[in-house]
């Protein structure tokens, strides 16, 4: 447990010692802020739906940008050799790094709390979907972090890790928007696989175990496959 904590602490601090976290947070706020507020006053509705609708897509490139360095950089610089010869379990390394990038996702979402506060000041905001939306955002961020960590473990090149991670996250986000091309017989299965679909469910303010289970299994699969790729390096 304490090793997970040490690794988490190191990785989390590293995000803020280097400008990565600031850059990613700034870009994220810029993009979400612009797309949300540019149409907000035209619609004249006190809701955060546009913000949450866009979230899977922004997360698809923001989170892989955070996770790409987690393992690829260690492989590239050789510090992985140093890390793995310390008395740590591979599992602890993976969980520590996962939690570090997840913490940055949380740090990234905190400034956006200004949006609901502003909106509730301007109009009559229904807080149910907002709270649901943030819970969904946490699950979504966790899942994408796990998948980003997985792609980071596959290569020593951070750019490849980023592109691969983005492609996977985009595919999961867009899956339920591509359903017109899918034959009717497997429609439901494909819809169920899409991260966007489950996120929208939670963002409506309905906490369904199926959606939560989906995200938890996505996190588990991501971390498990990461531990497999790490082991295969030995």
């Amino acid at each position, binding site marked *: 447990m*304490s*090793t997970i*904590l*040490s*690794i988490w*602490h*190191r990785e989390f*601090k*590293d995000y803020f*010692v*280097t400008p990565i976290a600031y850059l990613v947070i700034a870009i994220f706020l810029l993009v979400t802020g612009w797309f949300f507020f540019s149409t907000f006053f035209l619609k004249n509705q006190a809701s955060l739906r546009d913000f949450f609708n866009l979230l899977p897509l922004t997360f698809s490139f923001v989170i892989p940008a955070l996770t790409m360095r987690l393992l690829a950089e260690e492989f590239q*610089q*050789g*510090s*992985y*050799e*140093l890390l*793995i*010869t*310390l*008395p*740590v*379990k*591979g*599992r602890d390394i993976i969980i520590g790094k996962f939690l570090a990038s997840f913490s940055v996702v949380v740090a990234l979402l905190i400034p956006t709390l200004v949006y609901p506060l502003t909106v509730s000041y301007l109009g009559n905001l229904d807080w149910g979907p907002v709270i649901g939306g943030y819970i969904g955002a946490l699950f979504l961020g966790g899942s994408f972090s796990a998948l980003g960590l997985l792609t980071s473990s596959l290569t020593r090149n951070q750019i490849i890790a980023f592109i691969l991670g983005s492609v996977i996250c985009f595919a999961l986000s867009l899956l339920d928007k591509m359903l017109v091309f899918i034959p009717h017989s497997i429609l439901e299965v494909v819809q169920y696989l899409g991260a966007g679909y489950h996120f929208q469910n939670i963002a409506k303010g309905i906490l369904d175990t199926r959606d939560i289970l989906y995200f938890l299994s996505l996190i588990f699969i991501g971390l498990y496959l990461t*531990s*497999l790729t790490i*082991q295969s390096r*030995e």
Partner: protein
Amino acid sequence: MLSYFLTGNFKFPDGNLLDECIEKGFSMINVQGLTKYFHDFCAVDHVDFHIQQGEIVGLLGPNGAGKTTTLRILTGYLKPTSGSVKILDFDLMANPLGIKKRLGYLPESIPLYKTMLVYDFLLYVATIHGLVQPQLTDRMNEAVKVCGLRSVMHKPISELSKGFQQRLGLAHVLIHDPEILILDEPTSGLDPNQILEIRGLIREIGKKKTVILSTHILSEAEATCDRMMIIHNGGIVADGTPDSLKYQIDKQGSLNITLEKAQFSEVKSYLENIPGIYEIEKLPTEQNIPDSISLRIKGIGDVDMRRSVYAAIKEKDWTLLEMSLEKQSLENIFKDLTQEN
């Protein structure tokens, strides 16, 4: 897979228990039939050796001989294709975590986290080793003192010179007071003063701990190690103290003589009849003495040829300018053992 997630509660023997293990006759490191293939390339080929507690062992060999691979297997970073590594009586592969706690490894390239501060890095390593207060502060102070890092504690690692990075690497290895230290080319890239410093440090550490270091600098191995293992093409070709290695080859030492007013063919045909001499070759002549020849005489086994050669010279009345017994240097031994024919 499951074992990756569930690890046993193995504990490395400490203090009295460690002494007991050594009294029972267990080697600190016991390697048997170690083999490592990378695809179809054999990097380490059936290597066996024992290392006793408190030894400083130098692993020598040309680049690509398998030194780093061997060390990486000993640290548990690489899994051997076959063969076993035992630390005391414990299988490394079965108890990797417990053994890693008592082992310090410094990779060749010293891949430290460049963005961290020296202090943060040492603290990070110490907490991963599970050190808690008050030992944490003690151990950190000790490592910092031994490695002379006090003045750079609050600098980012990326700003350190190579020498300081090397010292920080050593400090990180020493922080948990390990029983076994594995150092891969600990002095590469340092200037001569720093090399002396690091060697002194290794000697100091080696008084109490078991140290294995790899190097391709022979004088370094001679200066620091109690024992040398020369490795070539994945196998151990020589193993012993620096002196014993020299002695082994000394037997085949050769005699160099320089004569004046003599013909090479005459000298050669005469000396060849002396028992014990099997080869005579001509060396380049000294420029300032026009009428002289230089020869190298090789004997069979450890026969001392000096007396018989001198007797022959006296008999033929050649003028002897120089006679010296050429001792094999470690360089020559190394060259003989590791050069492809």
